[in-house]
């Protein structure tokens, strides 16, 4: 187990270095700079600003200065928001993005597993086909379509749920959670169904049933443990995907999470913020992938 962890952590270093290097040179080669504005900035003012933010140094020097800062945990100041550091911005948005991702994954697991279990138990009946068709649709419909549709139905026509915000109005977390979680719920449903079907045919289930256990006990205490293995393996990457992919939902619902800062930073050429968020998201993805491997290894000793 320890070997697995240390191996993964060691491979993470070149991955992160590649992310920093590629992102750094890509953002610096994009046309336009952080201080370009509609009202043309006086050349003298521009020189001062570039000096202040170390943009007047040769690019390779800026790169090494930046790396040096990052190693010490300093992601630099944001170019767009004077007086705010990238770290401050990341930690302003992170709790919200994390909360959104967490609710979405809970929603996805709860809904997906329930549907998957029912489908697997009622294999090849309408109770299997109908939810699986809906699940396929759920996977296919992007959040950019689903979000506004939900807003239209529940926010505008029925007027039962707020259309924007996060923790500002009662119930405003419901639509974003559903929007972000639906596709993952659909995946969970299909994975659960597959996993369960495999397990339900095995001998120990037959034994459990032969012992006279109720069907509920058989499913919950015997079959689910094995049947959920693919879902658990999926959770790590799903959580990483939810965190990184939340920006669309954050934009639709006006949620002040990290994803929105990330997208804005790209449009504003806020170099340090783009780099900081990229590094941060990479770390999260690496971490959650590692976590899901660990959990899978705990559940299934064959993987150790």
């Amino acid at each position, binding site marked *: 187990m320890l070997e697995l962890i240390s191996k993964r952590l060691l491979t993470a270093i070149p991955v992160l270095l590649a992310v920093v290097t590629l992102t750094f040179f890509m953002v610096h080669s*994009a*046309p*336009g*700079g952080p201080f*370009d*504005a*509609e*009202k*043309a*900035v*006086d*050349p*003298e*003012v521009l020189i*001062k*600003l570039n000096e*202040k933010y170390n943009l007047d140094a040769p690019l390779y020097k800026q790169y090494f200065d930046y790396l040096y800062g990052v190693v010490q945990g300093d992601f630099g*100041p944001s170019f*767009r*928001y*004077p*007086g*705010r550091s990238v770290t401050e*911005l990341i930690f*302003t*948005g992170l709790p919200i993005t994390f909360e959104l991702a967490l*609710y979405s994954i*809970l*929603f996805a697991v*709860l809904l997906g597993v329930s549907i998957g279990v029912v489908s697997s138990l009622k294999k090849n009946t309408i109770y299997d086909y109908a939810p699986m068709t809906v699940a396929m649709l759920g996977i296919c419909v992007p959040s950019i379509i689903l979000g*506004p549709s939900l807003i239209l139905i529940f*926010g*505008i026509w029925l*007027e*039962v*749920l*707020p*259309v*924007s*915000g*996060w923790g*500002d*109005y*009662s*119930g405003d*977390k*419901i639509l974003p*959670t559903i929007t972000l979680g639906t596709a993952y719920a659909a995946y969970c449903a299909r994975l659960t169904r597959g996993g369960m079907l495999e397990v339900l045919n095995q001998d120990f289930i037959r034994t459990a049933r032969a012992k006279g256990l109720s069907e509920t006990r058989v499913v*919950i205490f015997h079959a*689910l443990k094995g049947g959920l293995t693919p879902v658990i393996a999926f959770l790590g990457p799903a959580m990483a995907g939810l965190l990184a992919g939340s920006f669309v939902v954050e*934009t*639709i*619902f*006006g949620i*002040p999470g990290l994803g*929105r*800062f990330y997208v*804005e930073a790209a*449009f*504003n050429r806020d170099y340090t913020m783009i780099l900081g968020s990229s590094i941060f998201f990479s770390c999260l993805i690496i971490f959650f992938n590692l976590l899901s491997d660990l959990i899978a290894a705990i559940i299934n000793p064959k993987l150790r």
Partner: protein
Amino acid sequence: MKYKHFALVVLVLLLNACGDNIRPVDLSYESQILYLGNGTEPQDLDPHVVTGVPESKILMALLEGLVIRHPSGLSPLPGIAQRWNISEDGKTYTFFLRDNAIWSNGDQVTANDFVYSWRRMLTPSLGSKYPDMLYDVIGAEDFNKGLLKDFSKVGVRAVDERTLQVSLRNPAPYFLELLCHYTTRPIHRPTIEKFGEIDSLGSQWTRPGNFIGNGPFELSSWELNKLLVVKKSPTYWDAANVTLNEIHFFPVDNATREDLMFRSGKLHVTSTVPQEKIEVYKGKYPENLKIDPYYGTYYYRFNTKKEPFNNKLVRQALSLSIDREKIVQKVQKGGQAVAFSFTPPNRNAFYPSTKLEYDPERAKELLIQAGYPEGTLPPFELLYNTSEGHQKLAQAIQQMWKKNLNIDVTLTNTDWKVYLSKMGIGDFSVARAGWIGDYVDPKSFLDMMVTGRGNNQTGWSNIKYDSLLLKGANSPSQDERFSFFDEAEHILMDELPILPIYTYTRIYMLHSDVEGWDSNLLDNHPYQFLSIRQSVK
């Protein structure tokens, strides 16, 4: 059992707060809270650093200058200055400050606060983006450019605690207009010095808890990308007449989401309306849809350093073959007015006597004269920043040029920063542009086209034009100034380094409970004049 608990927890998490869907605007006649859609997230709240409209809306609540804008856009009203004298030659302004003007921490607002603030704004190392607002003051430009080191030589001085004297290098009848701009408002010296130096960019003084202002409201909270709240200031000199208790500024940079927020009762005022909704709302919500004249011009820029746009006849031909009437009626549909000058016409002040006609036949003749008989003008690129609105307009003009002159135009859209960088280095042929005046005076437009100005960006230069602008600056009489400016407009509309298309309108949604909201050219609505009444439903 474990799974049941799990399910229960999730359900509670998701639905705990699900209750009635409250429409905050319906309750605001009691709370007197104004909910305002405010475009993008403010970058900062330092009046000497920021440049955007969202920031200006917030600063209008937090800081007050010598004068304030009249809610209907007429001549400025007394602000921190109770009254003022203007010398006969129009070059010396003496402001008498109110005794009861105090900062939100209880300190008195003094003439020295203004001297300090203006010094800070002009300090070269701060890198303020609006120092030119004060360039009419003696020595201000030199101090800002580092040519003058001694600020006492700049024409602003505190005669005593309550009297501020400003000496101008030229009469500037629009000077009070400039003093309405947020960048000339005072800041609290001890606060600035507590959190940094005079030229510290982005120090912590603008954070809630630190910000000391002198406006009708004080900063209460600021959550990035979420909400900024200001509360009525008890120390404001006219607090007794301020009705609103709070203003909630929502950073909503997405027109569709802002529209949804308005329709679900979360906002009183929006900053814009999705273009495709304008026609629908004209019929559906006529009492809420506001289309106000706006002091801005939408235009195309020619790169006059490039062939064939270095030829005036080509530029004139391209202008003559645009049917502006059709554009505002069929494409824009937002009440915009056809442009016939660079400065938007203002019935109360400067009304240019220029014309921009639609005459495709004459356009063809001009092209022949320029050496490009029909269909021989080389194809060129029309550049605009990515936006559906710009695209629609560009397509319409592309068709007009094809139909009338048989010219092939390629449309190129780029993201905002790429567009700006192309403008900066002159890497374009024809490009879309827009300008909103910072104050109501033709100078805020015409000055831009003077040789070598940062926002000229066309490469165009005309000695006579430059001299007319200079004459205008030195003329003490408003009528005389306007006649120089009118002449300058004629040169501009004959030379056409820029191609004005329409005069902007401000299109937004306004809740009918909001009272005191007048339309004006600069879209300024001082909050101390607003209130919320319960309308009859």
